[in-house]
């Protein structure tokens, strides 16, 4: 990933070079690159004057951050309690099977990243699968294939 020092610095400046804004800065960087590139973390460390180990510490502690590049589409399967009792884990397995990857990984062609989330708070319409921010309500094992096809060529 070609990381522009200037764009990282712009995020740091946006948060007024404040150390306490570290998480917000990393969120902005991830929104831009879809993950946290190594160079960006190094740059944040230099600009903020926070030791790199602390930046990495924060980046690895929080679930929302990814240190690996993510695919063009991010499939998030909700595994909240309500989705769990309605079959969420089976749907996750089906996605894992069809994409040939485990949750947390990205397909070799870089099209899909498969992730899980502990709860999206849309329990009534579970099991829920979110793709690039679009909510798919009441999904089932059978709908997995159609969902993948729908995004494959997008």
């Amino acid at each position, binding site marked *: 990933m070609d990381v522009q020092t200037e764009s990282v610095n712009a995020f740091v400046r946006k948060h007024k070079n404040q150390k306490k804004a570290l998480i*917000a800065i990393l969120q902005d960087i991830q929104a831009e690159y879809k993950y946290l590139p190594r160079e960006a973390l190094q740059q944040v460390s230099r600009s903020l004057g926070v030791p790199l180990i602390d930046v990495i510490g924060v980046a690895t502690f929080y679930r929302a951050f990814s240190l690996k590049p993510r695919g063009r589409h991010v499939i998030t399967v909700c595994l909240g309690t309500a989705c769990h009792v309605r079959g969420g884990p089976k749907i996750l397995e089906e996605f894992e099977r069809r994409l040939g990857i485990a949750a947390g990984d990205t397909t070799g062609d870089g099209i899909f990243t498969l992730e899980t989330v502990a*709860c999206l708070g849309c329990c009534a319409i579970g099991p829920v699968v979110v793709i690039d921010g679009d909510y798919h309500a009441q999904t089932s094992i059978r709908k997995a294939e159609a969902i993948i096809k729908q995004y494959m060529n997008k």
Partner: protein
Amino acid sequence: MKAPAKLKTLKDLEQTIAAQKRQRATDERPVVTVSAGTCGRARGSLKVLDALNASLRKAKLDKKVNIRVTGCHGFCEAEPNLIIHPGGLFYQKVDPKHAEGIVVETIKNKKTIKSLLYKDPITGKSAAKEKTISFYKKQKRIVLGDNALIDPTRIDDYLAIGGYGTLAKVLSKMPPDKVIAEVKTSGLRGRGGAGFPTGLKWELARKQKAEPKSIICNADEGDPGAYMDRSLLEGNPHRVLEGMMIGAFAIGASEGVVFVRDEYPLAVKHVTMAIEALRERGLLGKNILGTGFDFDLQIAKGAGAFVCGEETAMIASIEGYVGEPRQRPPYPAEKGLNGKPTVINNVETWGTVPLILAKGGAWFAKIGTESSKGTKIFALVGKINNTGLVEVPMGTTLREVIYEIGGGIPGGKKFKAVQTGGPSGGCLPTSKLDLPIDYESLTAAGSIMGSGGMIVMDDKTCMVDLAKYFLNFLRDESCGKCISCREGTQRMYEIVTRIAEGKGKPDDIELLEELAQACKDASMCGLGQTAANPVLSTLRYFRKEFEAHIKEKRCPAGVCKSLIRYAVLPDKCTGCLSCKKACPNDCIHGTLREVHLIDQEKCIKCGACYEACRFEAVETQRDEAIVIMEGAR
């Protein structure tokens, strides 16, 4: 568009509220409210909105009807839904193709479209209005009810229902001590889980000398299965902010932070807009309304760590650190954000505050039970007919919530348990259905109130699997600071996993109980101290089910994969091919109108055939192979 004038005095605010109220009262157009919270949108409410607007234009009625896009109306099962005023007609599960009919039949000809009405799952009768729908009848929606009256993106809508009027009253007539006294009288306790008396917390912070003091709104709703805070922030953000401003005034705080989950994009958006609107009107900053009250608000977005719901971890996260809790005392009310006194309350608590100050603490204290006052919002989800957000007075029984409001269990299945309190809570069985819901009774029964998740389970839910689910969640979310929690949740997960796989040992239950106790005793924060609750409560009420897994290698609910197999029942199979088509592994044999057969060697137990069958011809059976193996030993 011209920026609205800044409100400089209390009188300015009061006049603006009066003007907005007047405008709403004199607007005689019919109002169609479209429920468009996250769930509604996921089910297509914005498409319904577009179709309605198009149909209104076509009928040349677009100037004569007021379309109000609101947050969630709480009845998630019936999404997308519309409420049409005057009259309060409630249409459920509306599709864009219904739009034209609604405009022509209902709005123009004042006729009810019967097919869009809610049908009671128990009596089978239709109900035309919100008030007559069983889901709403028993509720007392004093906190959540306003969601249906306002467009959350417009501050004017909130003003039109008297919003910020309570703030004006407080700033003009009530000294901070009186505000705190009123909250203490109300008996309000924290709605986030622990149930600490809100007034006491405020008083403690008020007494501190250090400045600047802060307040935080905990909108890091991490409990899986609870979403009332999301709904309130999405649907009525100003209500929460008004509560925060009143609280800030009472304790003398000049800074406020809304700590909100990033997994809730619509809530983030609406609360951001609400803060901008306040700033635009001059309701944030120095010397607000000329009263000398200084206060400002900002947003901090969570980065996905359940432990950040714990107040000291949340403060660490807002300060840009890893979200690890620290030892208390000192409590945040003494030393919190940036080392200064800080009051943290959750969304629902803040959202209740304006109501208490408007109507009085004594009024609020009349609702509920001796120790738990007011109403509580529950997220009624899982295997239940009427899924949704339910607001009831404390003391309502589980049975009333599940059967009278929730409409019972779908598909005629049997109630097995209800899980309350999220990962720190527990599972309560049928024998506890008549338990009145309050903080103490739930704790005594081995669960907790928590933030109000209520996940209903039928006999197809395995309690071992559920305990495994929560332990997996907790071992993942444990921050790792205390060994008892970090290793305890991991070991408990491993033990329950082996029980679920039919590899449990005879003394595993005792070992679990011992570990659970250690985790409870030796962990520092609430996460670790309560991490064993899901295990302990399932063991307490469903011990036989654990024993069946360990001794008989049997999963009575037919869930644990290693102990079951899928089979086709010859007398029920119609040979329709649905299961064969659904099977991702091509392991179902059979042709059209011929009984199908599952190749057990190839079957990966994904459950696709079970899901696909419309004749209940696929069932889960005890996996005999394991029993035979056991017998041979």
